[in-house]
């Protein structure tokens, strides 16, 4: 049964440049390809004729929002402008490359980036999420680095919606499949459920890699005569659903079938590609390298040439195909996975070939770099592309889209949580605590993260559920890095400027509590449609907030990604600027654990607790309310808090540190006791007295700049002195007490399966409630397994 025609004859009616010049009036499907009328006119102006169908394909995909950042560019510039020389000091490669590169000392550098794969993950959750991981890992590899870890930031629809489980199962297994097969530890991330993501889940993937300074590679082709080599998987008809309109224009009804819009990943091919590339780098045979992701060959050829201020002559017939019926346009657009393009000096081609042959990686020479800044692509003897590469890759359209202050936001901000009833007695408070920590967003994510390998490679020092993930980079000295990512769409909805800064502040604090020094920022800005002026206002505010915040904290944005058009029906998602912060630690052995490990330690709350419940988990879970103003951000305080934590860690004064964020103190206490199964007695009197607040605010307020720290008795005086000297408010709020034997391995209390619990370790919040840890592990750990298991 022939579902798909296997046309083998080469298409005879190729649209050549000569043909294009001769037939200026031919109608072209620019509109179907997503171009605007003025954009099409500009292409004609650049070329001095109508584009060929291959050129039209290239321009349309490279000038798309996804590739050209045409709506966001004017705002992203400030990440490069709002920086000081001190911020640039450790920056080896900044924005604009595949990923930013940061010097971490001892001759080592790291590169990291987060990217979205939202829309493909809704259509086909498993392959969408899997290829998202594959794509970001290749970005890291392209910089010359060995990928060392991944993380994922996930947003799904409401847990009770029937479609949510399909997306959750697909995405989680896609990530674990690809990452586990590659042998990369997944060291952290986020999972949030909210109905705003129902028809548009967010699947963001982060990867980090390490390299020696001298191994840095850039994506450019600048030396005339160098060979252009495509290697890795063969090119097939993956992910070119969009260009099928071209095919239907060019060919008759019996032409190629409708092409699939999704891609299928092969992690084992990628693993081989990684090792093959690293050997190529080590042999010094690669002058420039680029991975093939979105826009495939169109992107790789034009970007390499444009970056190198050179040109390229390419023979498209030389591309190794999986499917011989592909048209030239389709070959240019194919998003087949696990492919790379290398620029190799002629004298090194033999050495290059020997290495790729050894890894059984297929390759073909497509052409060579030329001095003239022009990209020529031939299909056999026929010239089908003749363009200035810069106009394709970098000088795309730039929009200053209309911006409008949202009509609804004043009313939303005025609807404060102050009107919400609060618990009147201890029993009601205790019930609310249980309700909060067992709600899907606050419950343990073990059901998801247990499907990922955290420790493969043997260099993982911290992973979920710790605040930040940490991996060792140098096995000799223990030098390592810590990464945390955060975003709170609810805060973003209330105030996108503050929302972005809150995400930054939390990621920064999460890195600081691991004992690392924050150094650099990446981001993945997920928003609705840029054609909606209110969404554009949110984007403008969020980018300004992030850029100003980075300046205040003195850490640069090294790169990132923008994802627009995230909406369910006509309703935009909450602005969800995912912010990732990377920190450096001189020795991962010094890392600070996130949970309590010893009995009899004092528990301190650093920072100030105010009555800040607008947009909080408490308001959402208990009252289904979103309104008011998000908590106040104090970046200067975050800076001193981080430096105090660092100093205390270096002096070995702290036994554990855990950041307070969503769910406030109540959430942090539950997580801290469950991390290693050590109980605690805690009192709220001083918090209430100092802040002038009630029990509800003491337990659930999401005031920023707060950290829960445990300190051994012998270090008490020194620790308190250190905080006071730095002006960090410090309150002793309890002691650790009692050890439980929780089911599962130490450090991963799995939901409710306490076994052999002969002891009676408890979390007691004086005057409120007392639970056994077994009980808490059940309510906190069981939720996701019940919903999706």
């Amino acid at each position, binding site marked *: 049964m022939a579902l798909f025609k296997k046309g083998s004859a080469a298409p005879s009616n190729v649209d050549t440049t000569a043909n294009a010049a001769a037939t200026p009036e031919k109608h072209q499907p620019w509109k179907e390809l997503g171009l605007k009328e003025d954009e099409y006119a500009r292409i004609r102006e650049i070329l001095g004729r109508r584009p060929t169908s291959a050129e039209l394909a290239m321009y349309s995909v490279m000038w798309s929002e996804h590739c050209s950042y045409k709506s966001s560019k004017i705002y992203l510039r400030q990440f490069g402008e709002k920086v000081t020389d001190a911020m640039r000091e450790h920056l080896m490669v900044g924005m604009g490359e595949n990923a930013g590169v940061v010097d971490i000392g001892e001759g080592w550098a790291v590169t990291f980036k987060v990217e979205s794969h939202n829309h493909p993950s809704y259509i086909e959750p498993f392959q969408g999420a899997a290829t998202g991981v594959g794509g970001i890992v290749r970005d890291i590899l392209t910089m010359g680095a060995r990928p060392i870890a991944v993380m994922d930031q996930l947003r799904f629809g409401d847990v009770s919606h029937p479609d949510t489980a399909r997306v959750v199962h697909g995405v989680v297994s896609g990530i674990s499949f690809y990452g586990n097969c590659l042998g990369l530890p997944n060291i952290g991330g986020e999972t949030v459920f909210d109905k705003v993501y129902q028809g548009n889940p967010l699947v963001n993937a982060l990867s980090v890699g390490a390299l020696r300074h001298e191994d840095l590679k850039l994506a450019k082709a600048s030396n005339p005569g160098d060979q252009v080599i495509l290697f890795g998987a063969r090119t097939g008809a*993956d992910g070119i659903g969009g260009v099928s309109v071209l095919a239907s224009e060019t060919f008759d009804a019996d032409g190629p079938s409708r092409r699939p819009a999704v891609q299928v990943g092969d992690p084992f091919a990628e693993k081989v590609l990684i090792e093959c590339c690293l050997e190529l780098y080590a042999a010094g045979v690669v002058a420039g390298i680029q991975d093939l992701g979105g826009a495939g060959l169109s992107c790789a050829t034009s970007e390499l040439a444009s970056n190198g201020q050179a040109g390229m002559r390419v023979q498209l017939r030389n591309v190794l195909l999986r499917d011989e019926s592909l048209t030239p346009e389709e070959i240019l657009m194919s998003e087949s996975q696990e492919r790379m393009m290398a620029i190799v000096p002629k004298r090194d081609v033999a050495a290059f070939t020997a290495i790729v042959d050894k890894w059984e990686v297929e390759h073909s020479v497509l052409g060579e770099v030329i001095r003239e800044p022009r990209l020529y692509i031939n299909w056999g003897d026929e010239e089908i592309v003749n363009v200035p590469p810069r106009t394709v890759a970098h000088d795309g359209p730039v929009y200053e889209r209309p911006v409008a202050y949202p009509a609804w936001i004043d009313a939303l901000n005025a609807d404060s949580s102050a009107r919400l009833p609060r618990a009147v007695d201890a029993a009601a408070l205790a019930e609310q605590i249980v309700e909060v920590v067992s709600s899907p967003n606050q419950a343990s994510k073990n059901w998801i993260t247990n499907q990922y390998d955290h420790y493969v490679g043997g260099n993982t020092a911290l992973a979920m559920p710790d605040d930040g993930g940490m991996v060792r980079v140098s096995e000799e000295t223990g030098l390592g890095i810590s990464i945390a990512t955060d975003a709170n769409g609810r805060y973003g909805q209330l105030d996108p400027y503050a929302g972005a800064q809150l995400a930054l502040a939390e990621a920064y604090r999460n890195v600081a509590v691991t004992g690392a020094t924050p150094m650099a920022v990446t981001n993945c800005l997920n928003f609705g449609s840029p054609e909606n002026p209110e969404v554009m206002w949110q984007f403008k505010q969020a980018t300004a907030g992030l850029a100003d915040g980075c300046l205040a904290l003195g850490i640069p944005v090294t790169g990132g990604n923008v994802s627009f058009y995230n909406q369910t029906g006509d309703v935009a998602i909450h602005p969800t600027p995912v912010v990732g912060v990377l920190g450096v630690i001189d020795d991962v052995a010094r890392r600070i654990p996130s949970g309590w490990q010893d009995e009899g330690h004092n528990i301190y709350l650093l920072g100030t607790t105010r009555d800040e419940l607008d947009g909080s988990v408490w308001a959402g879970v208990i009252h289904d309310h979103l309104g008011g103003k998000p908590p106040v951000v104090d970046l200067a305080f975050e800076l001193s808090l981080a430096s105090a934590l660092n100093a205390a860690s270096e002096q070995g004064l702290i036994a554990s540190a855990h950041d307070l964020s969503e769910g406030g103190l109540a959430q942090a206490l539950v997580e801290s006791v469950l991390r290693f199964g050590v109980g605690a007695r805690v009192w709220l009197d001083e918090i209430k007295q100092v802040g002038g607040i009630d029990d509800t605010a003491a337990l659930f307020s999401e005031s920023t700049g707060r950290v829960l720290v445990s300190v051994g008795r012998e270090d008490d005086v020194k620790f308190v002195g250190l905080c006071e000297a730095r002006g960090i408010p410090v309150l002793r709020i309890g002691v650790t007490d009692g050890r439980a034997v929780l089911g599962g391995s130490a450090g991963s209390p799995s939901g409710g399966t306490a076994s052999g619990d002969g002891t009676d370790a408890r979390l007691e919040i004086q005057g409120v409630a007392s639970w056994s840890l077994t009980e808490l592990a059940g309510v906190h750990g069981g939720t996701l397994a019940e919903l999706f298991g």
Partner: protein
Amino acid sequence: MPKIIVEVMPKADLLDPAGKAVNNALHRNGHSEITNVRIGKRIELHFDRAVTDDDIAAATKIGEDFLSNAVIEDVVSVTVEN
């Protein structure tokens, strides 16, 4: 025992990593005459009575909606074995 057999294949245009791996392994073992391998799945639906036309129609729908992922797979045949 009467049964309906549903056969599902990865879409022709998409990469089939398992098929590719087997193809490469066959080549390494000297079977260069085999040019490509694609791997799908065969699903048997058993009945303890004769299969009706309605059953076949239902099985086709089950094959398309439930047994295969229409985004990346095709039901290539639905046959009856008695």
